[in-house]
């Protein structure tokens, strides 16, 4: 097991290096001049040049890259121009917001998609099957920001059921004391139930938006996996032995079918972490997605580089966890490795 982990990490290093290089080049290719931005309105060309020298932007690209790598090894991800804060601090503060949202979105998606997939698998090619497929495909056919805006319009503006889209917490609640950064967990640890409920209420609409968007891949994979398992011998035996439909489907088939679904979950999670930049913009969510988008549009290198690097590292860790989980659940995988 440890060997596998070490090997995987080793294989991931070249990708991470590639990511660092590509991001560096891409951000340097962005239009816009941070020196002019920093120098402020009404700066003369001389003033801008001075700032450029001060920021080290006049040095050749190789040297800038070298300094960036050295900074990285010290854990210094640079400072953001638009917010004026160190990137590492901001990422650390904002990551839990995005992670909490994405995890909850994934949960919502699983809760809807898995039953849909199972249901569709029990009666292949029936109207039920087609309906399930249509529902899940519809969800992924709309731009995610559009779904979000429509949900806000209907559930907040028209019906007043959802709270105002003001971010993670209503203005009159204070954050729970920081343990994990996940408000849901932290408020429970502090025993503060009203804050827990308030955080949950703010999470509903954005999580629903993300969930709708990721229904299709999970539902499809569940259906395919269930179909494959349901046609296998041991299920036939179980049915022949007279076990109830429920036992057959849930206790036997489902457990075995979950493995490919878990792999899909990993893929969907990392896809969502990238896609939630749009959801964060709609819901004023203080996560890393909105942070990165604002920085990108302002040609602010450091946050974009920091964001991409963080996501790449997360992605590697996530895939590793999935493989480990897979190995734990399915002994055959472990034995092969």
């Amino acid at each position, binding site marked *: 097991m440890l060997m596998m982990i070490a090997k995987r990490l080793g294989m*991931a290093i*070249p*990708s*991470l290096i*590639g*990511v660092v290089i*590509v*991001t560096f080049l*891409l*951000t340097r*290719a*962005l*239009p816009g001049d941070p020196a002019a931005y920093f120098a402020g309105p009404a700066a003369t060309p001389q003033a801008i040049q001075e700032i450029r020298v001060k920021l080290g932007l006049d040095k050749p690209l190789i040297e800038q890259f070298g300094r960036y790598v050295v900074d990285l090894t010290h854990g210094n991800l640079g400072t953001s121009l638009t917010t004026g804060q160190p990137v590492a601090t901001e990422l650390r503060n904002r990551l839990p917001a995005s992670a909490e949202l994405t995890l909850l979105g994934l949960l919502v998606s699983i809760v809807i998609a898995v039953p849909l997939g199972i249901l569709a698998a029990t009666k292949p*090619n029936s109207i039920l099957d*087609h309906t399930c*497929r*249509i529902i899940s*495909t*519809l969800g*992924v*056919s*709309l*731009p*995610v*920001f*559009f779904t979000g*805006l*429509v949900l806000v*319009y209907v559930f907040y*503006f028209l019906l007043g059921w959802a709270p105002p889209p003001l971010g993670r917490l209503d203005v009159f609640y204070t954050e729970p004391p920081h343990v994990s950064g996940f408000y849901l967990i932290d408020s429970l640890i502090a025993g503060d139930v009203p804050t827990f409920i308030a955080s949950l209420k703010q999470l509903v609409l954005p999580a629903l938006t993300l969930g709708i968007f990721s229904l*299709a891949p999970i539902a*499809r*994979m569940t*259906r*395919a996996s269930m*179909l494959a398992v349901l046609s296998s011998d041991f299920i036939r035996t179980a049915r022949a032995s007279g076990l109830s439909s429920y036992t057959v489907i849930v206790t036997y088939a489902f457990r075995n079918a979950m493995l490919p679904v878990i792999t899909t979950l990993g893929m969907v999670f*990392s*896809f969502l*972490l*990238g*896609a939630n*930049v*749009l959801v964060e*913009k709609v819901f004023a969510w203080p996560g890393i997605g909105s942070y*990165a*988008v604002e920085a*990108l*549009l302002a*040609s602010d290198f450091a946050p*974009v580089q920091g*964001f*991409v690097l963080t*996501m*790449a590292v997360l*992605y*590697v860790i996530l895939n590793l966890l999935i493989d480990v989980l897979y190995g734990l659940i399915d002994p055959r995988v472990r034995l092969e490795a």
Partner: protein
Amino acid sequence: MSIVAASPPRENALAALIKHSRYVISENPVTGFAFALFVLIVLAAVLGPHLVPYDPLQSDTSEALKPPNLHHLFGTDQLGRDIFSRVVVATRLDFFIAVASVVLVFVMGGFAGVAAGFFGGWTDRIVGRIADTIMAFPLFVLAMGIVAALGNTVQNIVIATAIVNFPLYARIARAEANVRREAGFVEAARLSGNSDWRILAFQILPNVFPILVVQMSLTMGYAILNAAGLSFIGLGVRPPTPEWGIMVAEGAQFIVSGEWWNAFFPGAALMVAVFCFNLLGDGLRDMVDPRRRT
């Protein structure tokens, strides 16, 4: 005496394909519906600009923001342009974006993948590294970065979509090429004196195409959604070009004040198109390899 059976004449092969398709479509009415929708979209893309009642770029400020009525079936936008005309004309551009992205990624990813699978060794390693590096990025942010760096033109949006989907195609193509590497027909081609590249281009790639075509229809939908997302942040196509994504993004600001038609009609068109492409993908998968149905 052994009689070698003559290969079936070409017409029979085509007839067989049609018969098989018809069987699949009748099996699954949803696929038939998706095919019909696809034909409709193509017709709108080709004939649309000639048939629309208004010039999609012409403003008429006295008619700004009018709800759907007899003169303007889908209403008018903030500059008084007819939304119905714009939505229909946008079909061509969005269809182009979808098809161009998919063709580009098939050529890039498909070719790289089969080369990696066929030659193995360093080719395989390099292609694999490139694919892994791209996959490690949050994909939408990579698309944003590429368009922001290169400029927001249709070409760059297509290029960004193709790059972001490259790893998936490379991976599938590689797996298929690996399998067929030792196949008989490849051996035969080699013996006939075909160079490796000719084998790749004319023997292997065409065999990989049916597998990839399923993914391609999904990518078509993704390309359009990607363009919409980019428009929402301001990196989409240039105004005043009609394109569903940018019309939805700009129309979104009118939802709260009640002018729902600005975002609804382009949004519906977009949804129908992406929906159609996704279902089409399922249908094609059934035709090509029913074992892979999900």
